[in-house]
């Protein structure tokens, strides 16, 4: 049977070749040297929708999906409730089958929604401006470090040791090309060199607890460096935003705002900063303007920072970003609104503290840190976390992240509004029985 994705028939093709004046399709490939053409490709035979859906459904069922397992994993990607309305809006194919909005008059829908996104994210983070989003939180942190180096004219970046190690590695990858040195500082560091372009701090940090952002802002600014804050957008329903703590650039993983986990991607790199740094900001940005009749409308703007105009002098090479994920975040924030986001943050906070307290009371288990935390915390376990996770798995529970390389027998647990009380109680009782 013919391909459902190729509408032309043999008859059409013959007519088109006639109009072109070519004897065959092969003739159209004449610029490719003959020995390179029509070589064999060793690929599996084609399958129909019916067959492949069946095969892939079976393959997908071999994964332990969080649909069936209780999950206490976080560490940068989080399972939060996604209201049904989000998927229905992002499922409008006028949105998801469009390209980057280069032709503004035919793309007002996505452009206006990006303007909403930029506004909502700024309101949330307490920051002045936002771009249209980058790939994910970690690459946003890396772009922030590169931007700080451009602004400060320096080539060293200080990263607190309490920042997600994956983020530190991505900052390192991005910095390697330009020989930017990454210095890891302990939270109680005594000296802060004036060679640092910025200090990167995560709030709440990788281990779940809150950092004293204002103190770090003073230190960084005192040394002529920028403060880059990696934040958790959900936490901002309840906790102080980075904009009120002296952040010059604030970035985040936007996946928790209305998006599934999808094994780690797509995510969304939220990127906000102070207005004075607009011209150094990476990525696309949408601005409001008017049309020739004075009507409000939206366009991609400040393009002279970008690769398609500025080429090797661009602020970044980024082109395609995560527009649809940003749309999901926009719909999510609009649906939650002021009271909803606060409620989500409260549910996370109280449930996490309920779980932490109960586990802390178990014999052999103790909370590793005393500082205030949000939805994640490290538990020191009586056994290696890897072993504990094996046993939890048998009970259909996906345990926390093994952080024993940093904390003896440490396990980083995450509790969100998705974890019901019975589920938490089950975790506690299984841990207690080990």
């Amino acid at each position, binding site marked *: 049977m013919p391909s459902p994705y190729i509408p032309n028939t043999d008859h059409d093709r013959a007519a088109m070749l006639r109009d072109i004046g070519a004897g065959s399709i092969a003739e*159209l490939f004449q610029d490719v040297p003959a020995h390179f053409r029509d070589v064999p490709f060793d690929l599996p035979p084609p399958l129909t929708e019916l067959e492949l859906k069946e095969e892939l459904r079976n393959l*997908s069922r071999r994964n332990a999906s969080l649909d069936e397992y209780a999950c206490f994993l976080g560490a940068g990607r989080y399972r939060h409730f996604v209201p049904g309305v989000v998927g229905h809006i992002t499922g409008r194919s006028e949105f998801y089958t469009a390209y980057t909005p280069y032709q503004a008059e035919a793309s007002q829908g996505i452009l206006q929604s990006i303007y909403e996104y930029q506004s909502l994210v700024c309101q949330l983070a307490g920051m002045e401006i*936002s771009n249209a989003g980058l790939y994910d939180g970690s690459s946003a942190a890396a772009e922030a470090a590169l931007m700080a180096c451009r602004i400060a004219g320096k080539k060293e970046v200080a990263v607190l040791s309490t920042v997600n190690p994956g983020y530190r590695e991505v900052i390192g990858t991005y910095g390697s090309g330009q020989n930017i040195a990454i210095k890891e500082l302990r939270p109680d560091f005594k000296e802060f060199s004036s060679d640092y372009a910025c200090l990167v701090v995560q709030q709440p940090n990788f281990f779940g607890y809150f950092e004293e952002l204002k103190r770090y802002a003073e230190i960084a600014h005192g040394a002529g460096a920028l403060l880059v804050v990696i934040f958790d957008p959900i936490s901002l329903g309840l906790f102080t935003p980075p904009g009120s703590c002296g952040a010059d650039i604030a970035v985040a993983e936007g996946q928790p705002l209305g998006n599934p986990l999808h094994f780690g991607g797509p995510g969304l790199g939220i990127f906000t900063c102070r207005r004075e740094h607009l011209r150094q900001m990476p990525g696309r940005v949408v601005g409001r303007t008017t049309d020739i009749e004075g009507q409000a409308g939206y366009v991609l703007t400040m393009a002279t920072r970008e690769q398609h105009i500025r080429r090797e002098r661009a602020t970044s090479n980024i082109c395609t970003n995560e527009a649809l994920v940003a749309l999901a975040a926009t719909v999510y924030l609009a649906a939650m609104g002021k009271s909803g986001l606060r409620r989500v943050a409260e549910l996370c906070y109280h449930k996490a503290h309920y779980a932490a307290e109960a586990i802390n009371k178990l014999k052999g288990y103790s909370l590793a840190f005393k500082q205030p935390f949000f939805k994640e915390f490290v538990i020191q376990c009586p056994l290696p976390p890897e072993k504990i996770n094996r046993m939890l798995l048998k009970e259909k529970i996906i345990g926390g992240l093994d952080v024993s390389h940093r904390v003896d027998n440490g396990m980083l647990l995450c509790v969100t509004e998705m974890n019901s009380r019975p589920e938490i109680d089950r975790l506690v009782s299984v841990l207690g029985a080990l």
Partner: protein
Amino acid sequence: MKKHKHYLLPDISKPGKTGCRLPELDVPAAELPSREFLRQELALPEVSEAELVRYFTSLSRMNYGVDTGFYPLGSCTMKYNPKWHEDIARFPGFQDIHPCQPADTVPGALQLMYELQEMLAEITGMDATGLAPMAGAQGELASLLMVRAYHHSRGENRRRRILVPDSAHGTNPATAAMCGFEVNTIPSNGDGNLDLKSLASLMNEDAAALTLTMPTTLGLFDPQISEISAVVHKRGGLLIGDGANLNSLLGKVKFGDLGFDCVQLNLHKTFSTPHGGGGPGSGPVCVKENLSDFLPAPIVAKGKEGYQLAKPPKSIGRLGAAGGNFGVMVKAYAYIRSLGAEGLKEVSENAVLNANYLKEKLKPYYHLPYDRTCMHEVVLSGKKQKAKGAATLDIAKRLLDYGFHPPTVYFPQVVEEAIMIEPTETESKETLDAFIEAMIEIAGEAEKNPELLQNAPHSTPVRRLDEVRAARKPDLRWKMK
């Protein structure tokens, strides 16, 4: 599209509304930390679900996608996105899995990634694939960081220049700069091919690589590819491919055979995953053996204990804290498996046929800078029309009135008033004929009534927008208290 009443979320916000109800707390409330940690106010809009849906639905109606109509945006491969691939990506076993889950709880996901790595390596004629890059430009970043690491590993730190053709995408030079390289531009010759003499003079022991889009952004296959590869390799350089235009070679020609050491792909172009209004994409890199140890982490390896995420021995490192855009990979995987080798070949053959058909039909009306067989896209010039007072931008805007998304314009920069048209294989002859008819009518309008074009579009929800004002007085957000 009809005129609309403009409003934003704060305009429909009213205290006390919400678009989502959440459960009551089912555990005892814990004590909150001290006031300094707590937010004093959170000014977000308050909107009901029904109003929200109406608002975003009205926005969607002001947006043009492949499902709306013909979208011949050159270099972007705006082909139809099969609906059932979306269904597969949403299977709970693919959608609701966490990137930090132990490998033995996600064997299905790892197997899919492993097989996708293998299939992409086969399709490009390469030895290994890294799936980590989250879009094409990040794939380019991975490519050039691998180039850098490769030369450094051989003690050739002096290779600090990247050669980039003048017709290349802006991401090529921007990426080279991000990786600390100096950029040398290689001109195109009169036929639209790479100028071999310039290449030979610039490709010396200080040059690290040539980045080459093949077919070029002029929509042309450079028949000198073997000579180009020989010059680059003889002088110790690497040949790095920008795979943006793979749609014309799919199932027909392998990048590896052409001499490329590395090629970056765009699953969201060639492999039919939707663009999402500007992402998410996925930009895997396929490499020959000489670069495989440098691939970005993680890759999926197959060992005695099944599939595992692994870090290649000399990896350039991670490009993201998670493992890449898995949700996009699932759709690309489904695409390849549903087409097979023959199906992929049909794709490129029909894409090239459609482009050549447009070229032949339009060349009597629009200037064709390179009159030779094109590949998956054709680059015309609007200079004849510009002389009459209607520039390429005006032609593009007028196409909106005819119900078509315009082609890519003013790129590649080497063509004056460029109009870059990529029809893809998923368009019918009837659609192409309707587009051709519109383009011919517009050419006529440019002659007789250029003002009509200058003031276009006339029928979109907004008229032509003032971009200068947007850039001079940036209004990038609303504020509410």
